[in-house]
């Protein structure tokens, strides 16, 4: 049995779990390649036009391996925390893919609730039963997979004189092709990077509690909470927010962060399949130059005593 696991969307966060689980069942695992131009092109061709870039790329990953495997793992991740969703597109991901790409092998359709062990195990039974009927084998593989996942940590922590928070959905931050290698570009400029995973949870929680309504998106909790926490802690000098065009969650989260941080430097980079690298480079350079002046040269105070970034003070 060959099991295909596409390297798109939340693969970057949960791949140890899926890979260990299906490996433990004795399946041969077929990964797609890292995202590249041809995957992007096939994805854009196959997917609905209105979807966001990561979903389109996911379609490309699937199209590239679908003929080589007997079962495709398309995790329909409903909830990672209790009563918190990921995104409507994740809830309907298998349907989107099946109806967009012809000649699909069987896929995993069961919903995936990851907030407790029992519901996660349910998914494993329904997905694993396509490979083996041996329940104890599934149980064993499940335990191994949980262990592998708990040992796996993501995120970038690299603090320097000037540090920015690299915010964005994990599948954008961790996909070097999608974000045009922004991590290395920042490193080359000598800018430190910190990601949402390293936000102190106590401050994040207090910031979340200040919201009018308990967030029902995990991404909102993580991104808004972490940005607000870093801002309150004065741990970073700026925020670079990587977002994909037409992302419903970001359209709200980016503005909530903006309202919270006021005049604090923040750069929002919108990515879609037409994004040109030169434009991104220019903006990145301008932003880092501005940070440098703000932090190193002017020590946070412009020469005439007024904050240059304030909209009220600008002429």
């Amino acid at each position: 049995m060959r099991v295909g696991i596409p390297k798109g969307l939340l693969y970057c966060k949960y791949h140890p779990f899926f890979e260990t689980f299906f490996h433990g069942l004795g399946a041969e695992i077929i990964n797609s390649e890292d995202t590249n131009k041809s995957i992007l092109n096939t994805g854009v061709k196959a997917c609905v036009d209105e979807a966001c870039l990561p979903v389109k790329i996911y379609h490309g990953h699937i199209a590239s391996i679908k003929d080589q495997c007997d079962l495709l793992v398309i995790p329909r991740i409903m909830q990672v925390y209790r009563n918190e969703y990921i995104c409507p597109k994740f809830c309907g991901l298998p349907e989107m893919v099946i109806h967009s790409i012809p000649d699909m092998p069987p896929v995993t359709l069961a919903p995936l609730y990851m907030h407790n062990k029992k519901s996660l195990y349910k998914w494993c039974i329904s997905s694993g039963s396509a490979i083996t009927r041996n329940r104890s084998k599934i149980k064993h593989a499940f335990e191994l997979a949980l262990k592998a996942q708990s040992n796996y940590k993501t995120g970038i922590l690299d603090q320097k004189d000037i540090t920015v928070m690299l915010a964005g959905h994990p599948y954008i931050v961790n996909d070097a092709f999608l974000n045009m290698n922004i991590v290395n570009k920042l490193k080359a400029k000598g800018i430190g990077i910190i990601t949402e995973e390293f936000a102190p949870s106590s401050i994040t929680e207090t910031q979340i509690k200040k919201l009018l309504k308990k967030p029902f998106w995990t991404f909102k909790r993580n991104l808004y909470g972490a940005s607000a926490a870093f801002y309150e802690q004065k741990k970073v000098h700026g925020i670079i927010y990587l977002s994909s065009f037409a992302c419903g969650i970001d359209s709200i989260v980016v503005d909530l962060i903006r309202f919270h941080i006021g005049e604090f430097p923040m750069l929002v980079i919108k990515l879609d399949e037409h994004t040109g690298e030169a434009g991104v480079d220019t903006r990145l350079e301008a932003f880092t130059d501005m940070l440098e002046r703000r932090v190193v040269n002017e020590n946070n105070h412009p020469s005439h005593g007024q904050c240059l970034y304030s909209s009220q003070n600008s002429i």
Partner: protein
Amino acid sequence: MKITIPHMGNVYIAVKILFDGLGIDYVIPPLNNKEALSLGSKYSPEEICLPFKLMIGNYIAGIKSGADTILLVGSCGPCRFGEYSELQLKILEYLEYNVDFIVIDAVKSIGMRELFNRIQIVGSESKKRFPGKINSVIRAYNAMCILDEIESQAHFKAGYEKNKGECKRLLNSCKSEVLSCNQPDKALKILKEYQKRIKNIAVDYSKNPIKVAIIGEIYTVIEPFTNLFIEDVLMDMSVSTKRNLTPSWWLKDMLLKIIKLNSMKLLKASNEFLPLYIGGHARECVGEAVLASREGFDGAIQIFPMGCMPEIVSKAILPTISREKKLPMLSLIVDEMTGEAGYMTRIEAFIDLLERRREHVFAGN
């Protein structure tokens, strides 16, 4: 306290009847128009969906005519609608408008007690006694149901009417008459009278008009300004339309959801293609498309605002339904930049296609 509400189709008429009955001070902002849209898109995040922008426009118009409280319904689904209140409050604060928000949210996210508290804030403004309040609420609900029925009858009978344009005239005069009446009892009476009149409209059932189902995102299908009055346009073309999503349907659906008995027929129809709730009304959209093919409709038009997450999923599924059930479909995506000419051309072309399709040699197979 002076309450204002955002617009959504004919909801304002029912709200007017409700507040007139309760004796609460209110402002109904002017119907959605260009100004509301341009104000809304000026102050809203760029990529947020169209309903959000129009609502901001409505609030500003309402506040300018003296409102200090905004009444809004909420949800806790994975769709963006649930997050509206938070961001809208921040935007209005930023614009230095001093308003309160009362969000009638889903029980699941705020709890029963908090929900009653919030309703209490509105209810305590009314000087009526408890039975009188309940009476007003029931009356408003009845008005909404009757209005929805009149509207759906008018839209469906437009294809069959003997005197062309009668349905549309009747519908328009009904709305304007109800709106000019400030006594809730009398308004209900007018509605009931129109209900009878639309039932007895002269129709010719030997006609075989093109029948189209209007499906998609709830706000854009209900609010005529966002879909550039598509139902009126189709009425003029003598096309019968049917739309399942109405404000009264939404209310029933919300209440029955608590005991999980909501729109069973729709959900059963959608099971084949989308067996799970994914937020918004994507599942209903898929179910309606399946039902439309079963009920012998000629085609379906899906309307949703640019970037609507659940409808993007249903748009991915609809081509399969179209292929398997042989039901032509047209997806129309609206936002603040929708141009009328391009939009109308596509609707006309679609209706032409449906007409020709009937004459095709394979028609009926």
